[in-house]
């Protein structure tokens, strides 16, 4: 049994909230996507199947709408409003990201819907929350991120280059993560004994979600009014920190993470250096040897003041740099990890997708498209619940594909 089997979700189509519906649908909730007669805009977003725009060819729409059914309703028409109310009376959850006054204007806001379904969990996700007029200004993922904080912390050591907004709707995703957390919390509450009719209205602010997803940028300010500054490929910090990104022999980059700091790590690093026959190219190799033979833990508070400890740690960094210049990013990743160092190759998304580790975990998932008579490979589960598994139960719906089916169920 899927974890959310039997939970009916009505989602008012909006690119901002589509991901929350997908998270629920792939865990077994019955998600009904309500689209206006022309369909949701994101049906026309690239990339497209075979790079050709056209009906049902948007891979963007495919991804964000797996396991959902589509029903067309024009909520400006009284007849369709009645149908919507009927649907709500059978639903557990309403997900929407409408302008703040729209549903009230149509007589379809929480106050109107609650009497029809007391157990309804109505989630409204808006840029600043339902009570803030600024929520009705136009926003994109980029401008939400700028307002909410992430770009201030992301970019390069060179501050003549602009701050960077991370790719791929991560502002929307962060809001949607909080939508899903909220729904699960409200469902657990409603499922406790005697709470069957205890629905509620939940107000999710997208910029607030970003504000509390910036690590020390926010709590550093709250605790001691420190301001972090962006740095290339590593944490923004109040004071500059050492580089952690290196280019390898194949031109690709790695993140070296936390440099070696335990004797066994220095020992493994020295062993690897010898295996690669690079020891002679590292004048500091003698300090690696000292690090490997060090008795007990290093007193890190002496870094910078004790010459020996400082030299040993500096040799660790130099050894990593030398090895990185000599091997491919992948070999550097595997070699360091085998030495116990938390290091990462900077993969492109497709390289991550093809990585043997994720393939072995079953991350590549086939989804059949009857409409194109073909099976395509999708990204798989973010978590593995063996007793109530994640599953893509159907491809993204065509516009209004399930209108008749769903209306017949209501009749």
């Amino acid at each position, binding site marked *: 049994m899927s974890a959310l089997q039997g939970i009916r979700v009505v989602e008012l189509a909006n690119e901002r909230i589509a991901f929350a519906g997908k998270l629920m649908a792939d865990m077994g909730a019955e998600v009904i996507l309500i689209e206006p007669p022309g369909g949701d805009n994101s049906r026309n977003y690239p990339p497209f199947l075979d790079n050709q725009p056209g009906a049902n060819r948007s891979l963007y729409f495919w991804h964000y709408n797996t396991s959902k059914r589509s029903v067309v309703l024009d909520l400006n028409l009284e007849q369709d409003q009645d149908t919507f109310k009927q649907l709500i009376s059978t639903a557990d959850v309403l997900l929407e990201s409408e302008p703040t006054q729209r549903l009230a204007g149509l007589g379809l806001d929480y106050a109107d819907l609650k009497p029809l379904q007391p157990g309804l969990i109505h989630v409204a996700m808006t840029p600043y929350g339902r009570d803030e007029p600024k929520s009705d200004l136009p926003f994109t993922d980029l401008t939400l991120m700028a307002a909410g904080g992430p770009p201030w912390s992301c970019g390069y050591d060179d501050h003549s*280059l602009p701050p960077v907004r991370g790719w791929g709707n991560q502002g929307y995703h962060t809001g949607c993560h909080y939508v899903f957390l909220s729904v699960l919390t409200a469902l*657990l509450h409603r499922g406790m004994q005697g709470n069957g009719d205890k629905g509620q209205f939940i107000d999710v602010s997208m*910029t607030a979600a970003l504000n509390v997803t910036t690590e020390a940028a926010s709590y550093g300010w709250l605790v001691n009014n420190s301001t972090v500054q962006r740095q290339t490929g590593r944490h923004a910090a109040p004071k500059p920190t050492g580089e952690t990104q290196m280019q390898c022999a194949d031109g690709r980059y790695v993140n070296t993470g936390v440099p070696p700091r335990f004797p066994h790590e220095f020992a493994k690093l020295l062993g690897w250096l010898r295996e690669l026959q690079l020891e002679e190219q590292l004048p500091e190799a003698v300090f690696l040897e000292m690090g490997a033979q060090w008795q007990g833990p290093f007193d890190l508070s002496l870094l910078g003041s004790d010459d020996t400890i400082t030299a040993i740690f500096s040799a660790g960094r130099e050894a990593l740099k030398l090895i990185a210049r000599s091997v491919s990013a992948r070999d550097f990743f595997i070699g360091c990890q085998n030495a116990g160092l938390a290091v990462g190759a900077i993969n492109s998304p497709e390289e991550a997708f093809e990585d043997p580790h994720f393939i072995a975990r079953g991350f590549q998932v086939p989804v059949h498209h009857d409409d194109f008579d073909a099976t395509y490979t999708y990204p798989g589960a973010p978590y593995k619940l063996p007793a109530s598994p994640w599953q893509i139960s159907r491809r993204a719906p065509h516009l209004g594909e399930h209108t008749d089916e769903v209306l017949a169920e209501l009749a």
Partner: protein
Amino acid sequence: MQQALAGIRICDFTGQLAGAGATKWLAAFGAEVIRIEDPVREGRWDILRGGEPFKPGQRGLEYGGGFNNHNTDKLGITLNLRTDKAKQILTELIKISDAVTENFAAGVLDKWGFGYEQLKAIKPDIVYVSNCGFGHVGPYHQYKTWGPIVQAVSGLTFSSSLPDQEPAGWGYSYMDHTGGYYMAMAIMLALLHRQRSGEGQWVDLACTEAAVTLNGPALLDWSVNQNPMRGETAPHSNRSQYAPMAPHGIYPCAGEDEWIAISCRDQQDWQHLAAIIAADWTATFDAQQHRLARQDKLDTYMSRWTLEHNKFELQERLQALPIPAAAVQKPAERIEQDPTTGNFGLWPTIQHSAMGEVQVDGMPVHFSETDWQMHHGAPCLGEHNEHVLTTLLGLSAQEVQALAEEGVL
């Protein structure tokens, strides 16, 4: 106000942000989260305990600002699991818990004798959620990660960059925050399943795997069309990835390191923008295909124009049109000057036993019936030993004292 998760008890070994962030959510909604720490290492497995930032004049194990931020309203006990008595106490605690949560390296809890099979033997319907970088299964299960490593391996670092530059990546552990969100989802999904079926389970969460899912359309473009994101130049992630929009970027404003983000969605947005720019060059970009085809040139013109303006004044003018525009806000601007965060109640003040009053990250949501609450800071080491052991496990205060003297707590 009623608490949504009241009555749920979590036996919690999590730490850092990727784990502690998950149970922070549960505690804010009323779950009883009992955080277990190692007295021998003084809880230092969690590097945030005793780490910066500190309040002025404070420093040390009980004063870590990040630790406090991620562990609000949790109870804290110490158990030296090298001793049999501590293992017995843990066993009794698991018997009365709904879930066991941890984000150690794979296999650590198993080595202590509390792997899933043992947990199930102690409490058959226990929910066990483990969160580690590569998960407990697969060729890299022994490999270690931090947030930046998760981001690197999963594709998220690569896809955050400017062209002709190395990856910019994320200037914070996006995947420690987000890994915590997925862990909290996994805990609640498993609890919901148990609520409906009576059945527990072990959720093997791999933070890297959750991260890979966050580039969905790019992955489909690869698997379906064989279009890779790695090409001759690095991605320009300030541009619009999906809906065609131009200009779409982060532009410099007057002052040092001041920036504004602007997105022009369509022809109407452009006409509004061109009218206030009021310069001849805009005419050569009047058609959207010209703007999209010559974005580098367009960005150069845009930057010259934005540089003449204060970022907040320009934000006001552009939002009034309205077109999507927002200043790149610094922490102080978001927290102190932007009234929307404070109005939302986003920075509650909590009381910490050692640090005193501190403001922390609140939750970006409000529930009409069972909203979150934050009152207390992170627990000091073993702060709730007596409370938990006497009220939940029926020990006397003298017995707790004796256990502490024996080195069990």
